[in-house]
């Protein structure tokens, strides 16, 4: 039990660090066609945290990524819209992947990324009181979906090559046994 927690903590730390690094590096590049449009490569590590460690650890990784990533990017106020969007999107991804029997991680990631872009844009418009920014919404959702496909593919192939022993036994499996 103690060993499993240590493994989970170590994996969470590792994946959180990788998420923050990739988030910071991605922020150094110009956005894709539209302001704020990015592939969201750091979500690979958030989804891996959900699959390898557990759902609650994925939310922790997401919070660390958003908080430290925004801080390192020099745009701390981005936390206002990136964190709620991330939470809603991750919740949707986990719901689709868990609740829909034959749904895979790629489709869950596409839907999650679309929701992420949408919520982020809506919260941004509310926070800045700029309704005209909603004009970017469909394009951002489309770019988000493309990013979700890339992230989903990355997670799918990564999980396929990771042996079971590298995944921390999830809480759900512990309860079952």
């Amino acid at each position, binding site marked *: 039990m103690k060993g499993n927690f240590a493994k989970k903590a170590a994996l969470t730390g590792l994946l959180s660090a990788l998420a923050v690094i990739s988030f910071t590096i991605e*922020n150094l590049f*110009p*956005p894709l*066609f*539209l*302001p*704020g449009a990015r592939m969201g490569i750091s979500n690979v590590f958030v989804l891996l945290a*959900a*699959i*390898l460690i557990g*759902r609650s650890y994925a939310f922790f990784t997401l919070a660390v990524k958003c908080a430290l990533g925004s801080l390192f*990017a*020099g*745009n701390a*106020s*981005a936390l206002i819209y990136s964190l709620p969007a991330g939470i809603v999107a991750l919740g949707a991804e*986990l719901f*689709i*992947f*868990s609740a*829909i*029997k*034959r*749904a*895979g*991680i*790629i*489709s*869950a990631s*596409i*839907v999650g990324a*679309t929701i992420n872009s*949408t919520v982020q844009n809506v919260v*941004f418009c509310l926070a*800045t*009181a*700029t309704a*005209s*920014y*909603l*004009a*970017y*919404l*469909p394009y951002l*959702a*489309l770019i988000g*979906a493309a990013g979700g496909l890339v992230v989903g*593919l990355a*997670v*799918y192939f990564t*999980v*396929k090559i990771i042996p*079971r022993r590298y*995944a921390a036994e*999830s809480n*759900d*499996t512990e*309860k079952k046994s």
Partner: protein
Amino acid sequence: MVDLFEKAKKSRAFGLTDALVCLVAAAFVGTLFLACFLFVGRERSTGIEISIDGKLAAIYTFGGDLVIYDGYEDIIGGKKTDGGMDIEVVSRYGRNLVFASDTERSAKVTESDCPTHDCQYSEVKNGGAVICVPHRLKIAPTGGGRTPPVTG
């Protein structure tokens, strides 16, 4: 509860259920495009308003003058150029150089010392807005019947 690792290990890359899930997402994006097409205004703006920290700081009318609100004279400055005006905003948050084009009736940030440079990828043209979050700067098309202030 489902063991996500086991499911991810065993699941196929893309099946019929995935196609259906993606179809729902595609329908959602399609609805957004339709709503945008139907509801987003395309009227040409007559000018731009510049806000800092949520407060209106200046108004520029295309082909006209730059009107700077009281208290912002030291922060905002304008210089007429070919086809428009270069508006420099140097607030306590940072510097942005905005080019307002009279011929295209548009405005965009040409220079910024903000960390993300997202503001340089949007434009005020037929609607839209430019927002520099780190510098708390907003450039929006004029509207709502707001009239320039009386200064001096």
